[in-house]
């Protein structure tokens, strides 16, 4: 059982996903975009974030960058991307996570990837601009 945050703007996709994860025994919270996702993370750190890419207000990669930049500790939460965007592998590479699954995914595929992510718990490492690298280096 794990504490999972699902960040997905399409309720039609989120409802069965949250239901399935709940039936698997996980404790699941849900947010509709990156901004809401950050607010949920502030309330309580989840063990993993299942994150959509293309969302209004603050998209998935933008949220991943904010997690890295703001407050120590958040950047170590593993992220698993679930998205329909073309070339999801490149997006995953850009935020530095090995966990991603293209929509439409099977629940078997989801379970396998989720088990792996919870076992390895590899934190994402988004590619930073030279300016960001300098700021982090100075800090």
């Amino acid at each position: 059982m794990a504490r999972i945050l699902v960040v997905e703007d399409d309720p039609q996709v989120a409802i069965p996903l949250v239901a399935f994860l709940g039936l698997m025994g996980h404790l699941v919270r849900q947010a509709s975009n990156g901004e809401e996702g950050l607010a949920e993370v502030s309330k309580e750190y989840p063990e993993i974030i299942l994150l959509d890419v293309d969302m209004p207000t603050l998209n998935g990669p933008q949220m991943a960058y904010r997690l890295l930049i703001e407050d120590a500790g958040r950047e170590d939460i593993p992220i698993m991307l679930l998205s329909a965007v073309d070339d999801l592998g490149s997006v995953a590479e850009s935020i530095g996570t090995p966990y991603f699954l293209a929509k439409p995914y099977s629940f078997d595929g989801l379970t396998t990837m989720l088990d792996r992510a919870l076992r390895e718990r590899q934190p994402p490492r988004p590619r930073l601009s030279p300016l960001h690298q300098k700021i982090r280096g100075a800090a």
Partner: protein
Amino acid sequence: MKKTSPVRNQRPRHTLKNRHRFERQERDLTEFAINATGLGISSILDDGTFYRTIEHDRIFGIDPNSKFDLNDLFESFHPDDRKGVADEIKAVLAGKKTGYDFEHRIVRKDGTIRWVHAFGKATSDPKLNRIRLTVGVMDTTDRKKLESDREMFIASLSHDLRNPLSAIRANAELLKRYPRGFKENQDTLGRIVFNVDRADRMIQNMLDLAHIRAGEKRNPVYKHCDLKKVISDSLKEATLRYGDRFEFISRGDFDGVWPDQEIQRMIDNLVENAVKYGCSDTAIQVMLLISDENEDLVISVKNYGNPILPKDQEVILQPFGRAKVGQQDYKVKGWGLGLAIVRSIVETFIGKLTLQSSAAEGTVFKIVIPLSTFSSIRV
């Protein structure tokens, strides 16, 4: 008496001057025909001498009377393409290659970027030891834009269709793995049906686009209904999809003969647009009324959020048009077809789609259709 040959008398008397005039006319005619094809031609000698046609100058955006040499040509290439293309031309003029064929960008003096397809062939005169490079150049910007639109369309189509497919699959798997109580199963089945309809609407939009592009006329179906109910049903569906954030205001009696499906499609597209590009925590207002002069049907959809800049307002009404407020997201969300489809439906009814947008007042899409369009309809 000197005899003259009758054949000799009938032969036209070409003077040298006439022959030159005739050749010049032939040359002008050939150049006219070549220019008409949109093919610009230039001829470059290895000493840098440069000849060019009017069409060539039009493509490059240069004054036909201005000086233009090989260096100017290289300078006109887009910085990212310059070295590659210039090196090829230099290699041909040095006799190392016999020709070249490139599609690359040029930057006109006014800063506009155009795509061109340029192909050159070298001819040499061993006696004079000269090399001449003859280049044909076509402006391919419009084709490039079409290609890019098509690629974007396919990428967006696959992305957007995967979401309802994903929902259908997830709900079907839930039913298969965890058949629960009657109500839960009914809800899950309802979501499957809902997402099949959603995918179907996307396909319908795509087909509509094909009709718009082909310039085909719509044949709306009219039926007796209450327009208030048509719109309120649309908003009920939207509430299921996007949450409880819609306000519906109507003024007047709308029981009559209406093209209900077309009006529903306009509302669906405008509402979806407002959800996508508007502020997520403010209400979306939909209004239905008859104008004060009792002449027009007026439907408006209003959202708050980042305003659409005046220069983008016409762009977003075109197929694939998407203003910055939408493009600020990570990748394209939606196909940019919705508003173009609304406009096409409005025009079918000889109406107008207008847009007003400001940070203070929000963004309002307003449909105004003369009631006279519907008055002659009988079901």
